[in-house]
């Protein structure tokens, strides 16, 4: 077992501390972030309001009536405990996200494949072969930043972002891949689309993916896409 990366604690707001494990995108740092987040959620101290994991840092928001110095001391103790006895987080399995690649739902598949010197089918297979982790959720409600993209599939963003990208679009932007949870403007290369609704504030839980989840993409055809859209619309 590797030693836990050390962590700095700095003020994020009068009612929030930032735990910084590093300043780069690195699976080991991200795992330390999620381990600390899981520990805090399990302890659930009464002052805890929000736990926000990012690539290499963790935001901890607390009750504004609480003395920040006391929360700081408690966090310091927790960090030391985790460094001394790292927890192995039990894997809760791999979430499968169905994707219809190419065609009208993946307008950038062919041009992206050509740019990478691959056939469209080879790009689909390599994208779907990845073992991804939800490094963090941000930018918009339910937008997952996934780590684990094959570095050979990195693609520059579109020179001119699209005015509208469909909800569920699966895309590559730089060295990252992600899914647009909601129709929005966007500059990532859209390879396909999932029929799953990623974020619905009226459901419990509102997001299909949680920070720290492992996931992979599964290629589906148009019939399966239509079937899954129907299944989802029929759900309560």
């Amino acid at each position: 077992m590797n030693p836990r990366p050390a962590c700095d604690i700095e003020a994020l707001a009068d009612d929030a501390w930032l735990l910084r494990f590093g300043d780069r995108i690195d699976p080991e740092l991200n795992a330390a972030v999620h381990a600390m987040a899981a520990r805090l959620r399990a302890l659930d101290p009464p002052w805890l309001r929000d736990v926000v994991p990012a690539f290499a840092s963790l935001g901890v928001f607390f009750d504004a009536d609480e003395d920040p110095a006391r929360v700081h001391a408690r966090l310091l103790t927790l960090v030391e405990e985790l460094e001394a006895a790292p927890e192995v987080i039990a894997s809760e399995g791999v979430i499968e996200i169905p994707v219809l690649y190419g065609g009208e739902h993946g307008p950038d598949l062919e041009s992206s494949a050509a740019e990478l010197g691959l056939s469209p089918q080879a790009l689909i297979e390599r994208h779907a072969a990845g073992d991804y982790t939800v490094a963090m959720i941000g930018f918009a409600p339910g937008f997952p930043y996934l780590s684990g993209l094959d570095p050979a599939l990195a693609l520059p963003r579109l020179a001119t972002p699209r005015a509208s990208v469909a909800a569920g679009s699966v895309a590559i932007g730089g060295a990252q891949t992600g899914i647009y949870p909601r129709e929005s403007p966007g500059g990532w290369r859209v390879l396909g689309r999932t029929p799953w609704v990623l974020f619905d504030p009226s459901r419990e839980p509102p997001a299909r993916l949680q920070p720290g989840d492992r996931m992979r993409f599964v290629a589906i055809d148009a019939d399966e896409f239509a079937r899954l859209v129907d299944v989802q619309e029929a759900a309560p």
Partner: protein
Amino acid sequence: MRNLHVLSPGLQTTVQDRGRSGWRHLGVTHAGALDADAARLANRLVGNHADAAVLELTLRGPTLRFDAPARIALTGAVASARFDGERVPSGRPVDLPAGTLEIGSLRGGARAWLAIDAGIDVAPVLGSRSTDLRGGFGGLHGRALRAGDVVPLGAGFAQQIATPRAPAWWIDHAHDTDQPIRYCPSAHPVASALARRGWTVSASSNRQGLRLQGDALPSPGGDGVSEPVAPGTIQLPSDGCPILLLADAQTVGGYAKLGHVIAADLPRLAQCVPGQPLHFAPVDAATAHRLACAARARIARIGVMIDARLPAI
């Protein structure tokens, strides 16, 4: 069933309460009234609990028709409000018969809060009635009010009165507008330089953040690795002009951070109008905590004063 009928929506009128907690890890912003104290006092004036939903008004208020009597209170920037032609004062409970309230332009600040007895009765989403404008949920249909909207009100004030009536007393919790905005600097090399330059509030500011214009600060070229941000975070984008994040801030961001505006001064940011000059002063964390406690005590004292006077009206 009481309703508010929106005859004209104003510049940006939204349903807000104390905001959403516990969902930031899913990218859900906090939202909520930009000055939570002002919204709380407006609620207190009409006898609501502190978390009841109110309307947040921006620069120019809405025109609203009440289809039943109501007790209302306006706090924040001073509104030139009229009810069927008669002036409606701010900072106190005002009983209204059914009729039309025209709020008009705000003076001395950018925002005001309108509380109505029993609160705005939209369905809570993720534990809050606040409008999440970027997420498109909460409040009324996840957006600012529009002409023709019908806003449901809780069951409340049943007194039949012929004309508006209000007590002679009022509360005034105005902020010192001339004082610098106090902030806790980060370890970033230009964090202290923020306080050595004068800034003006840009017209492209909104509930997500206040954009500042001025003599640009030296800035790192590219963005860093995205980290959590919060209302009050002072970001430094590559153009060197800082952004002060507000209640609708995204949950993570990649810009460099110069520190954070202290909690006691966050309500003052809600009142900044485009073109307004702004300057900053650094303070340490202990001072920030002391000022936050003092601000809470002040609001609590005003609340007790209100509660003592309400039974007499």
